[in-house]
């Protein structure tokens, strides 16, 4: 018996080792050599959501000086992964805030190195709150969670001081006119989504109003003229995605219009323009001053972005960064375009790249 066992073991070891040696080792290639940036960016972080339940949300980092691409800077520096479905990343001061949805954590890390300073577990007893997005005001990081709350995180002590009750399954949030606007999606109620934006008084930290917008609001951004732009996703059936513009002086809806928006598209603003992704995967530019369409398609050189997924503007250079989620299963890509919509370079990312943050020199 003993011999028999040893023999089997030997066969096992031999088989495994011979098989192990046949793996292809593919290194993520840099498709293009990124050019030197025009600004004081030291590097760019791309937060990849990874595949659901695969714990492979990663943080791609590209360093402009060394031209080095790190597939997962977070894991490299911390020796552990971000977890499952990193949904938002923002840098505020010297710290970086990474919101991880399914793992239900918020990682607060050093912005330059991604070294974790604190991992905040977002649980109500054993119920995962499922944090989604972060915004900042003074010494507060404000974090939406699917459990219908906005957490108030003190950026100095890194403790949550309050949970503000808002609507159902809040998604994105934005500070405008010294108030906080939260898109309440209600998206976990199939067939019965929410249709409100909560207004939160940032002094009393309470919800003061719910503004009715189009069904299933998700993305939100503020312009410099005192308006907040909300994209609602509709009900995926008869109610189409639409744009609601809120006047923050009166907290009344100024305009509401159907638009050909991709489901789940972000909306970002910069100067006189807002950018979002259309249903046919174009990046459209909206003029927030005139409140009319500026450009039907931002990309001017024919570059194909298969599945535009995340958008981010470098305010200093006007460069637009667009992530490409491809088929949501394979590694993605991030494209940098100059102001005129011409591609500058692209970088290989992890699976489903969704959010971007720039690190200053």
């Amino acid at each position, binding site marked *: 018996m003993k011999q*028999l066992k040893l023999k*089997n*073991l030997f*066969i*096992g070891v031999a*088989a495994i080792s011979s*098989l192990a040696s*046949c*793996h*292809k*080792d*593919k290194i*993520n290639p840099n498709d293009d050599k990124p050019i030197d940036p025009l600004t004081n960016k030291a590097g760019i972080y791309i937060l990849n959501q*990874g*595949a*659901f*339940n*695969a*714990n492979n949300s990663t943080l791609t980092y590209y360093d402009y000086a060394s031209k080095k691409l790190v597939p997962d800077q977070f*894991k490299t520096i*911390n020796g*552990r*992964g971000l*977890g*499952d*479905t990193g*949904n938002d990343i923002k840098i505020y001061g010297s710290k970086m805030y990474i919101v991880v*949805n399914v*793992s*239900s954590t918020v990682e607060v890390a050093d912005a330059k190195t991604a070294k974790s300073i604190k*991992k905040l577990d977002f*649980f109500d007893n*054993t119920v*995962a709150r499922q944090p989604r997005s972060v915004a900042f005001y003074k010494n507060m990081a404000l974090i939406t969670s*699917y459990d*219908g709350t906005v957490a108030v995180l003190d950026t100095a002590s890194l403790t949550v001081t309050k949970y503000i009750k808002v609507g*159902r*399954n809040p*998604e994105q949030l934005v500070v405008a006119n010294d108030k906080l606007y939260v898109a309440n*999606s*209600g*998206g*976990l109620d*199939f067939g019965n*989504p929410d249709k409100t934006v909560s207004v939160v008084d940032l002094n009393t930290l309470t919800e003061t109003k719910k503004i009715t917008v189009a069904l*299933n609001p*998700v993305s939100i951004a503020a312009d410099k003229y005192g308006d907040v732009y909300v994209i609602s*996703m509709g*009900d*995926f059936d008869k109610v189409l995605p639409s744009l609601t513009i809120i006047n923050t002086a009166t907290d009344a809806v100024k305009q509401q219009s159907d638009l050909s928006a*991709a*489901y*789940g598209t972000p909306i970002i603003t910069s100067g006189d323009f807002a950018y979002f992704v259309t249903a046919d995967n174009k990046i459209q530019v909206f003029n927030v001053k005139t409140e009319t369409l500026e450009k039907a398609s931002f990309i001017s050189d024919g570059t194909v972005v298969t599945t535009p*997924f995340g958008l981010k503007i470098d305010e200093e250079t006007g460069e637009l960064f667009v992530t490409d989620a491809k*088929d*949501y*299963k*394979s*590694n993605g890509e991030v494209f940098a375009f100059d102001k005129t919509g011409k591609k500058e370079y692209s970088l290989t990312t992890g*699976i489903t790249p969704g959010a971007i943050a720039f690190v200053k020199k």
Partner: protein
Amino acid sequence: MKKNLHCVYKLLPASALGAVIFMLQVTLSNKASAQTDTAKKLNEVTISTSTIPQIQTITPAQQVSAIDFTRNSAFTVADAIRNFAGVNIKDYGGIGGVKTVLVRSLGANHTGIFYDGVQLNDAQNGQIDLGRLNLNNVQSITLYNGQPDNICAPARAFASASVLSIKTIRPSLNAEKPYQVLVGIKGGSFGLINPYIQWQQRISKNWSAVVNSYLEKADGQYKYKVNGDGSDTLATRRNGDIKAQQADAALYWTKSDSNQFNLHVNYYNSNRGLPGAVVFYNPYSKQRVQNRDIYVQAGYEHLWTNSLHLLLNTKLSRLYTHYTDPDFLNNQGGLNYKYTQKEVYQSATLAYHILSNWEVSYAADFAYTHLDANVANYACPSRSTLLNAIASNLVAGKWRFQGSLLNSNISESVKTGKSSASRNVYSPALMATFKPFNNSNFQLRAFYKNSFRYPTFDEFYYFAIQVRDLKPEFAKQYDLGATYTKSLNSWLDYITFTADAYYNNVTDKILSIPNQNPYISSISNLGKVDVKGIDVSIKTQSKLSNNWRALLTANYSFQKAIDVSDPASSVYLEQIPYSPKHTVAINAGIDHQRFGIYYNQILSSSRYYSGENLPENLLSGYSVSDASAVYNFLIKSKQVTASVEVNNLFNANYAVIRSFPLPGRSYRLSIQIKI
């Protein structure tokens, strides 16, 4: 399906996420059916170990019988067949975890699971959880690539790419001892307690009955290592508890071997926790699923002296699934879904020997399946399936030929919305064996089979605003093999050897294509897969010498299963997810009179959990060993069998499915008395 859908999750805000979680949960809440029986001559079952296993079948067939279960340290049907060549068990881990079978890199829905000749059908998601099928009342399990070689069979037996045929124990009693009772209990790791009883009763010359019942209770907890979250201690897998009970009763009327009837009633009830994927930093799951399934099955078989052979089968089933997730963050305070699937099935087959070496058959099956669910806007579909199959078996000299042609006519209706389009499909199969040498034990065989698996109710209707436009997923199989069997006069009793090379081509593979809007087009027929593989099996046993005897079975499988869907895609020509290139399974043992000790070894090369064959998508290979020992003795002239089984002897840390770690070393003790 589950895997592909994952990605949708992240693209989307909450609304879509709801759908995906929902679909995911359905996959997990997998409703296998329990058991039943219908007397039917599907295949001869060899119980005695001293006879040579019958391996020279027209299509490859692999069998294990009751005596092998302990040798394989098997607790469920999934464990019992995991050594088979060409088989991969998709194991989500733990005692209540879903286990489905993939044969030759075809999806789980391509294998038909038959209980005593009648299929366990699930139209909702098409996946039968083999981990739910307890071995207490099982006599034998046979896997046929292609189809079983008995052509007097229900039309459904011709309808799958492969058939896993499970046969339950039939009473064999006489007037001197008109009853036999088996009482036993299994218990061990995971807090498992599994008492069972089997009562066989001879009622009269023609009538007999069997009643089986068991209870199963386990907390399902085990230690595992989380890789990548920075933890250095072992975590405990929780919410994997199960409480299940099953009762089945069978009544047999046997006028003669050629005139018999049977009736079965089967009830299964379980309540289990779903531990879910291991998610870093979020170890909590409160998802639960309850199953309550019942079915009644009857069969009648008559063989007239003129060789006309009639086979009738009837089945009524009701499968109830209740899924809850109190932590789901919707307005109702959690998910609470109930599904009831009902099916009426009738089959009739006639076979006739035109000449002594030429048999023909005709089979017609009709099934009506309906699914009700308390899901908003759910279609509540009904499906009518009419199958007609003709088959022929001809022996001519050194040749044997078999062919069948199946016509499937499937149509659906729905309570709300639009139903799927009706389909009418012809599926041929051709098989042959050839014995090149006289007086030799060497045979060649070949088969071609064209089959399909129909889209499930979930794929058509689940969270679909409109019914999804799906075609059946087709699989063409080509197999060429050789078999050799010899009984020996040396210290070996016999040796059998089989080797088959095959090519499978899957077209219109049903894929969930993530899309920003999962409600409209997340599932379509865009996949194509090419599988080239080799299955090799060897079985041998030594002669009894001083009451010692040694046994050895070894299987090797090679599978190159590549994605050939889209040359522009990054996964083109890459190995498909969860398909190991190499698998080795070895089972060896030694018997000495009443005592036996056995060792089982499975080796799997690494697999990718995603379509891109990148190092970061690699799931490492594993080597898992099991050992068992059996001792038979008498207490007051009653036969008692005691056994101890150790699974994962060397405490390997491994997973078959990413994020679903499997248990380390575990133990199981069993004792059974025959009265």
